[in-house]
């Protein structure tokens, strides 16, 4: 089998050719219009767009729909490709939600590691004041790339968990729209490549928030960044449509909404945000894109156009911040709601006790999602927006603490008096709770206007944000990886290596986040390449040393996990179908899960988390053949 017959490779080649074709097309059109034929910016925009679309066509994401367009019906493909080795299905358009879930997870882990590498690079630069090995430009580029690549990685991680687990947890055959599901994943590949390749055309130096006017005037790298985010955003939207329809329509008999595993509730709430808010980051980036390409004055007040003498000048950068944060604040709830739901999912298994306050936890996810739409301007307290907006947004922000508090009560209530076991996933769940507590307690400090003012744009914000992301996503995600690893591969991971990973990463992360907050209070500003060594009575450098060493320790832990997973897939001991004695449907079927997950229809007959209740049953599977 030649490498070039692999659909992913075909896609990559098509993306390159599509980019070149788009640039040529732009040049020809400009020449026909009588303009100077070559202009780099529009050529790159059209080229990047066509390249991304070409990837999707060449990989085969549109194959079935193209058939439908000419009136042919296509049956849903099942199983590995007939003419190629089975592993190639992971590099092809495959319609099985389990394959797509793995694709999301692996590509997500790759992006998380790439994003982490950018962070390690600029963290090393920050070890000492003065510039050592990164130029100022590259430093700014790495800051932005760290942010957006991590966000992409997190979105993919969320997509991976949701796609793999939701149909299994519901007892459904697959997602509602398998073809859309595959397209949703493949959007991410050209999207991420566009973002990473922006470094080749000058990069972009405004940080991942891409605020104009800087982003409206900087190098061409911005355009690739905007388009890359647009592609990943499309993935979020079609993925959310798919998950919402699956959750609402694909539940088997007896699976009422309040009998769904709590993780499904988390995904439901997250999908509501992804479905709606994502449009706004797409729109805001698209508006800067056309502002740069066609001179449309949405945001840059100083934009000079030919009609300027006749009409009013350019636009208003504050508008961009409103549109941008309307997505980008709820986005953090997209990241954490599935993570917090993993905590709720795993705690009862390892405490052998019902989840405390199931309905309240389920509804708290929805409450966070809804309140999350009303808090965006707390990112803008010092931006120069209408000051009258500050206090309402402050109160709305503090309101988020209520449903989040419900979750904490539930976790404590579930642990309380439980028969606790501590394998690696449980350790990561407890680590998540401890880290999320740090992030949660520092939230109100930043959400309150008077304390926000001095701390705004300081490293204190960086510390708070990373604690919420690690507590709300990274720790639960790792817990989920360890927990469902035996279900995916059929083998157990190495427990000792898992525990070393945990005991390395958790103290390192505490040191990192508390260190970031400390240097922030000393006066360290975020996104700045250099600092005054006299800050904090000369203690600031010590702080940066601690943060950087902790960062490398976390990275080492992650590598250990990857090694563990790769190695254990071959030598790990066979796990059996239900090593954790879980009640959830996915553990009642063989590991690894067969191509058609459930051999027989699933019926839900009881409550999901009645651990420790004698004789209680959650799901029942009809014997094969008996309908």
């Amino acid at each position, binding site marked *: 089998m030649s490498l070039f017959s692999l659909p992913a490779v075909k896609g990559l080649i098509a993306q390159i050719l599509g980019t070149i074709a788009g640039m040529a097309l732009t040049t020809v059109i400009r020449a026909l219009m009588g303009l100077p034929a070559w202009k780099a910016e529009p050529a790159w925009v059209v080229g990047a767009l066509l390249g991304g679309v070409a990837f999707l066509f060449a990989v085969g994401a549109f194959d079935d729909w193209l058939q*439908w*367009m*000419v*009136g042919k019906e296509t049956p849903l493909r099942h199983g590995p490709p007939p003419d190629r080795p089975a592993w190639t299905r992971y590099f092809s358009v495959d319609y099985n939600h389990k394959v797509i879930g793995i694709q999301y997870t692996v590509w997500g882990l790759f992006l998380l590691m790439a994003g982490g590498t950018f962070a390690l690079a600029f963290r090393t630069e920050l070890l000492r004041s003065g510039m050592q090995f990164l130029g100022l430009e590259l430093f700014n580029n790495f800051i932005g790339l760290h942010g957006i690549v991590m966000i992409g990685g997190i979105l993919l991680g969320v997509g991976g968990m949701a796609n793999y687990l939701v149909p299994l947890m519901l007892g459904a055959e697959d997602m*509602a*729209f398998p073809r*859309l599901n595959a397209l949703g994943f493949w959007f991410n590949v050209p999207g991420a490549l566009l973002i990473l390749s922006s470094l080749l055309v000058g990069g972009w130096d405004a940080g991942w928030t891409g605020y104009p006017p800087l982003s409206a005037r900087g190098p061409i790298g911005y355009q690739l960044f905007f388009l890359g985010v647009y592609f990943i955003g499309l993935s979020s*939207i079609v993925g*959310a*449509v*798919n998950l*919402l*329809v699956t959750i*609402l*329509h*694909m539940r088997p008999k007896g699976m009422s909404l309040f009998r769904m595993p709590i993780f499904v509730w988390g995904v439901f709430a997250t999908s509501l945000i992804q*479905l*709606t*808010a*994502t*449009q*706004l980051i*797409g*729109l*805001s980036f698209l*508006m800067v894109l*056309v*502002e740069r390409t*066609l*001179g*449309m*004055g*949405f945001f840059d007040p100083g*934009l000079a*156009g*030919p*009609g*300027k003498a*006749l*009409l*009013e*000048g*350019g*636009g*208003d950068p504050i*508008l961009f911040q*409103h*549109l941008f944060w*309307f997505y980008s604040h709820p986005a953090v709830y997209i990241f954490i709601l599935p993570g917090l739901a993993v905590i709720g999912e795993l705690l009862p298994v390892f405490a052998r006790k019902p989840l405390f306050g199931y309905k309240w936890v389920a509804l708290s996810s929805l409450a966070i999602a809804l309140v999350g739409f009303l808090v965006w301007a707390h990112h803008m307290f010092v931006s120069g927006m209408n000051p009258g907006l500050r206090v309402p947004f402050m109160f709305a922000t503090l309101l988020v603490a209520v449903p989040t508090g419900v979750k904490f009560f539930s976790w404590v209530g579930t642990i309380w008096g439980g028969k606790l076991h501590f394998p690696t996933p449980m350790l990561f769940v407890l680590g998540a709770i401890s880290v999320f507590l740090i992030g949660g307690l520092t939230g109100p400090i930043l959400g309150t206007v008077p304390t926000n003012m001095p701390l705004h744009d300081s490293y204190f914000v960086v510390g708070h944000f990373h604690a919420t992301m690690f507590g709300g996503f990274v720790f639960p995600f790792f817990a989920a990886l360890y927990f469902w690893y035996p279900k995916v591969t059929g083998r157990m991971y190495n427990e000792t290596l898992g525990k070393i990973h945990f005991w390395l990463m958790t103290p390192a992360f505490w040191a990192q986040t508390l260190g970031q907050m400390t240097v922030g209070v000393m006066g360290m500003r975020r996104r700045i390449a250099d600092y005054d060594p006299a800050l904090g009575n000369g203690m600031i450098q010590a702080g940066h040393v601690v943060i950087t060493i902790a960062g490398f320790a976390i990275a080492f832990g992650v590598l250990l996990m990857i090694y563990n997973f790769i190695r254990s897939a071959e030598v790990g001991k066979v796990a059996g179908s239900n090593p954790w004695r879980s009640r959830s449907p996915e553990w009642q079927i063989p590991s690894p899960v067969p191509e058609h997950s459930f051999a027989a229809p699933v019926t839900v007959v009881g409550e999901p988390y009645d651990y420790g209740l004698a004789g209680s049953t959650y799901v029942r599977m009809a014997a094969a053949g008996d309908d």
Partner: protein
Amino acid sequence: MSSVAVSIHESYREKLRNNRLGLWLFFVSEAFMFGGLLAARFYLWREDGVVVRPALDQQLGLIVTSVLLLSSYFMNRAETAIAHDDRENFLSGLLITAFLGLVFLAGVVIFEWGGHIKPWDGVFGAVLFGMTGMHALHVLSGVIFILIIWWNGRKGHFSADRHWGVEACAIYWHYVDLVWIFFYPALYLIGRVVH
């Protein structure tokens, strides 16, 4: 009906149920994008706290709006026709809708965009071209969708029981029409005229 036919029928009904919900969720999503554009319009077209608008060709606005509204009638006629297996009115309804859609597009792209405001003319150009451009893209995709449906309909696809493609196309067309019902007053009617 044999049991196999029953189960195929069931699976079509199930898919139809999923498709309908999926399409409506997509509209909810799109509503946020169009809503963002409307928000930008009311944020940027404002002078000293008063909502303003540029002077646009009122006759043109009225004509394209009427054409688009009229097209929705023919779309509905086409969908109703196929639901009654009336192939003739189904196909002609689609063609008339596509034609009216193209008239609308011509009105916007040739006449509106050819007017005195250009995209680079500050906030007026930006918002006008941003809103009409995004809407025109949707109209264009709707016309292409209609033509694909027409092409397949002509070859004998779709029936009274099975015409999800037609239904989706019709709802999409009405949705794009509905968006314009919000955009038209925002661009042409609301606010004090300046420039």
